[in-house]
């Protein structure tokens, strides 16, 4: 419950006991007062520690948001090495229906293959991946976390293609040596459709398959989701924070008119 600094201050005083004990107490008039000061100190220390832990949880949540957003900015520019460095050594990634790839180096190779084995965008390539709508849930010990996000994508190749894309992430994060990293990335592709006609008139352009035919995954797709116009609801890592609505016994319409009229 004491921070290292305070403990060190207290313990280091052991060495000074003779000197200290010879000094007359200047502000403390009795042993009783000193005891009460000591318990007061312990109380303040405990309160401080509680605030530090709470502030740390907010900082952790913010660090994780910055991490995922940094991921997005690197993805925009096809900066694969910067991206791969955001993962833990034994992290997994699973994009759309490409299957699961395990370990930082496999992830790096997967990412490079997404980008034609080159770092940086091709001339004429657009790869905007906005990282939006974070719902971050920290574990009780503050060492792991989960996050749901949504990507909105404007992608394509000048004079060849233009695509609208969208899909949610359900990711996991781990704090290693005080630094948050991505330990699991799962992106679900809701749509990836041509700009012309959008999602109303086009099916998904690749059925969620990117590089897996030439670069097989370590494990097959871990779920059964299909591709647009098939729809699905990726599971949530969090429960309803307030609680699901349970209708009263009577029909909804019966209780609908309780509101005061203006």
């Amino acid at each position, binding site marked *: 419950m004491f*921070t290292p*600094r*305070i403990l060190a*201050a*207290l*313990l280091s005083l052991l060495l000074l006991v003779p000197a*200290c*004990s010879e000094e007359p*107490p200047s502000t*403390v008039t009795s042993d009783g007062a*000193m005891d009460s000061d000591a318990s007061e*100190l312990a109380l*303040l220390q405990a*309160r*401080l520690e509680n*605030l*530090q832990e709470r*502030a740390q949880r*907010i900082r952790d*949540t913010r660090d994780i948001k910055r*991490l995922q957003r940094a991921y997005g*900015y690197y993805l925009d*520019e096809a900066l694969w090495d910067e991206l791969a*460095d*955001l993962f833990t050594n034994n992290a997994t990634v699973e994009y759309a229906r490409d299957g699961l790839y395990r370990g930082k180096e496999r992830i790096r190779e997967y990412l490079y293959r997404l980008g034609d084995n080159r770092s940086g965008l*091709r*001339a004429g390539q*657009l790869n905007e991946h906005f990282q*939006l*709508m974070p*719902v*971050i849930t920290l574990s009780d010990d503050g060492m792991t976390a989960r996050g749901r996000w949504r990507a*909105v994508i404007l992608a394509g190749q000048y*004079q060849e*293609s*233009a695509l609208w894309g969208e899909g949610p992430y359900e990711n996991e994060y781990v704090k290693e040596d005080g*630094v*948050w*990293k991505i330990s699991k990335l799962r992106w679900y592709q*809701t749509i990836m459709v041509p700009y012309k006609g*959008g*999602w*109303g*008139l086009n099916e998904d352009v690749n059925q969620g398959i990117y590089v897996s035919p030439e670069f097989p995954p370590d494990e097959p797709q871990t779920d059964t989701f299909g591709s647009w*116009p*098939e729809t699905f*609801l990726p599971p*949530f890592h*969090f429960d309803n924070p*307030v609680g*699901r*609505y349970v*209708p009263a016994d009577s029909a*909804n319409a019966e209780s*609908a*008119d*309780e509101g*005061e*009229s*203006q």
Partner: protein
Amino acid sequence: MNYPKPVILISLLLLSSLGAAAQDDAFLALAEDIAKAEMEIQLLEDENEIENLQRIFGFYIDKHQWTQAADLFTDNATLEQGGSGVYAGKARILEYFRQLGAEGPQEGILNDHMQLQPVVHVSPDGTAKGRWHHFSQEAQLDVSHFWGTGIYENEYLKEDGVWKISKLHLYSTMRTPVDDGWQVTALPRSRPGTEFPPDQPPSVDYENYPSVYVVPFHYDNPVTAPYAVDTTVEVMSAPGAQVLASDLDKMEHRLSRLEDANDIERLQTIYGYYLARNQWDELTGIFAADGTIEIAMRGVYRGAASIRRNLNLYGVQDELPGELHNHMQYQPVIHVADDGLTANLRSRAFSMMGSFGNQGRFMGGIYENIFVKRDGQWMMFKDQQINTYFAGTDDGWINLRRSAPPGITESNPPDEPPTMQFEMYPKAFLPPYHYANPVTGRTEVVQ
């Protein structure tokens, strides 16, 4: 950090058996730890204020509120957008905005400039930097309509306790007419004007897509070179226990408001996820029992049963075969009341909707919501959404003339009539703000 109890007891015994000097040292060390923790809380508040500031800026730009927007800058700030060059000083920045169009929301003009994906880093010296994604929907009725993307790398300065923008630099990435899209047409970045030339030429030489340009990052890789600040505060003499206890009281109050803002942003976001898949019982559950929902001028539905009934207007619960109903929640500006029991949120709605087989639609809009905390739990108390447009993915905004929002459904009527009358683009409408300008305190609309 946890120490075994005996160690603590021995420490306490030592403390009480040592002289006053030892106690002074222990109190001084505690005071320094408290001061450091307070600085860390301050930095978290700073981040929130800076994110609010940039998002407030975006909402002003949407509606051509040039005076309000320019007032968010420091006197010596610079502004540089696209390739138009650098405008220096608050007065010039206002002039720059004014040559973009008349002050205030204009009929026939859509100017939505989303402020997304903040990566903000604050320094204890009262400066900060932020990277943001820019995503714009711009139109002039019967004339033109565009999609645009870009990156902001901005700087902020705290003056007399108030955060302001000291440098705004929007690098344009891509701009295309809606009719063509970015496969067909890629517009070049803007050039310095001759009628209203900049004070300095463009600071960076680059071209828009289809060229490739990586906008420099103000931060290093967050994993291999994490951002770190020194929050150590030197304390010269230890205040008494009472002063320290009072410091902790104030810190706890401030920290609670930070936790509240975090919880509210999370709740509003979850609202968007439930709405996206017609999860009506889940969605109704996040409202207070006496809450209200008022969407698209459909009127006020009050209380859980009515809110649940209202949601039937948008489809059958949990059933969405071949339908996209993606209702996204962006750009939250959150203000928590000092007592931590109520809070206001303005945010942006952006939706991708439609059934397979028909042209899909985009919807843009504004939320002005109220949250309440009951028994320690934040809930949605008032959900009000004011639409800006519904536009076909291929039609865009150029010929969009339907300005009436959906309105009341007679077969499933509201409990109360709409609290606000509005029309969508191409009409001009300014959804009222729950907040004043964070720099000037101005609330009135400048025309």
